């Protein structure tokens, strides 16, 4: 310890502090990029929705709930087998997501579903020769079914997150710009103020390698802990969706972490090369 403290000069302490700050800035910038390309990006949400089994699970869940409603409304369970059309669900979910990212009011369009339902009811009553005694009862059933549909299409938590979306986008853009500028400044200071270039590269290597390690280890810790399988969401479709979103977010962090580890490896090679050259 004594030996270590003896070796510490004010210059070294200063460089170590700059290295540490550089690592922090790399992490802040990286997380800002990941946030901007994941949770804050409409494309990310659309990709996650398309690549997960969200739509399929959602259709099954809506059908199950409607079947229960049908059990109380004089409808045979077979009536609901092909009623919920995945194309309509996709369209309505996409429109809901569009409204979310455009900052519009989050309402679910149920008109297409209602039309499908009313048509199916007409066919069903004609086919089974059923006489409707009170049209009001049919309207009440249809309105209940539309409520079930709207509730299912609505993505929980999105409505409460909408206000934060625009704020967060601005904050992460600012963090990204500030991080990049400050990090570039520190790199320039390290390179220009150190007479031994290989030592400057070693400090930058330490910053990139340590931030790379953090960015790689964090998603790995989450994966190993199995947290993604323990999501407390009551519906399978939402659990799949949130799981896929978190997975996409963590994978992005992992990729950036790997990029920084590769950069640090290149810096280490350059550092060794310059050191050997300067030794000669």
């Amino acid at each position, binding site marked *: 310890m004594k030996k270590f403290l003896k070796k510490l000069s004010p210059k070294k302490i200063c460089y170590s502090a700059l290295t540490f700050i550089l690592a922090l800035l790399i992490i802040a910038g990286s997380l800002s990029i990941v946030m901007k390309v994941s949770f804050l990006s409409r494309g990310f949400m659309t990709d996650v929705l398309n690549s997960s089994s969200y739509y399929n699970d959602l259709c099954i869940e809506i059908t199950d709930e409607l079947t229960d409603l049908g059990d109380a*409304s004089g409808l045979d369970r077979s009536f609901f087998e092909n009623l919920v059309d995945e194309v309509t669900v996709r369209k309505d979910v996409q429109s809901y997501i569009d409204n979310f990212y455009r900052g519009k009011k989050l309402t679910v369009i149920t008109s297409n579903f209602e039309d499908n339902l009313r048509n199916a009811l007409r066919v069903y009553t004609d086919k089974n020769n059923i006489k409707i005694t009170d049209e009001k009862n049919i309207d*009440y059933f249809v309105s209940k079914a539309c409520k079930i549909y709207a509730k299912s299409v609505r993505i929980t938590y999105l409505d409460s997150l909408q206000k934060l979306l625009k704020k967060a986008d601005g904050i992460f853009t600012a963090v990204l710009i500030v991080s990049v500028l400050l990090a570039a400044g520190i790199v320039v200071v390290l390179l220009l103020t150190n007479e031994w270039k290989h030592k400057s590269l070693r400090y930058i290597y330490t910053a990139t390698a340590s931030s790379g390690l953090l960015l790689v280890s964090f998603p790995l810790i989450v994966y190993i802990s199995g947290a993604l399988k323990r999501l407390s969401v009551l519906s399978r479709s939402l659990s799949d969706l949130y799981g896929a979103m978190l997975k996409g977010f963590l994978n992005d962090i992992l990729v950036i972490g790997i990029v920084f580890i590769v950069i640090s490896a290149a810096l*280490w090679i350059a550092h060794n090369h310059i050191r050997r050259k300067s030794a000669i």
Partner: protein
Amino acid sequence: MKKKTTNTRAAKKRKKIKKALKHSILMPVLVCLLLYAAIAAVGYPFLSDFVSIGSMLFQNGSQSFSRSYENIFTPSDNSSDTVDASEVTYPSINKQFGKLEIDSADIEAKLFFGDGSIPLHNGVGLYAGSFIPGYGKTILIAGHNNTYFNGLKKVKKGDIVSIHTSYGNYEYKIKETAVKKATDKTAYDLSADRENLILYTCYPFDELGLTDKRFFVYGDKISGPDIVGIYE
């Protein structure tokens, strides 16, 4: 002399490797740990609220989305007047714990605890805020009018409703039926101090559509063991 030179070279090489390892691996790992500590220390006051909200999104076990259910019902031949509470396995939500029969109305349905989607899809469900048979209070059971409780349209005053559980068999005599609004709170009394059975379903029967009317069947207990020692 030659050996000494070799030893010095080896020592120099070892020192070099040690230094390289220190700078290439040890330092980044150390800084990484410091970064974790710094983020935790600095971020805690700002992020603690988000972390506590986030932790609510996770649970201890993995989530099950299965529509299947557990059956804890095994037919009982208990013919005594009482059953000790310690011998009764209390059901939890969505578990089948009995069977309900009304011979005069051709009703035979699995009896579940809870009246959510799984119970009503597979049988009839006891409202979790009411009481299990033998408890001496109100038993409120729901079923769909298009499936398991369609036969309620045939019940008459004096008909017998049988409920079979793993701890005893119960019979209730129907004293009246009534059509009431779903929002009518006078349709049931969950605080009644006598064992009474209420069955209900949507109304009207065999008609397309939904209304806010419900068909209620009221019955009183005529046989079955009372659960004793509940509050001991």
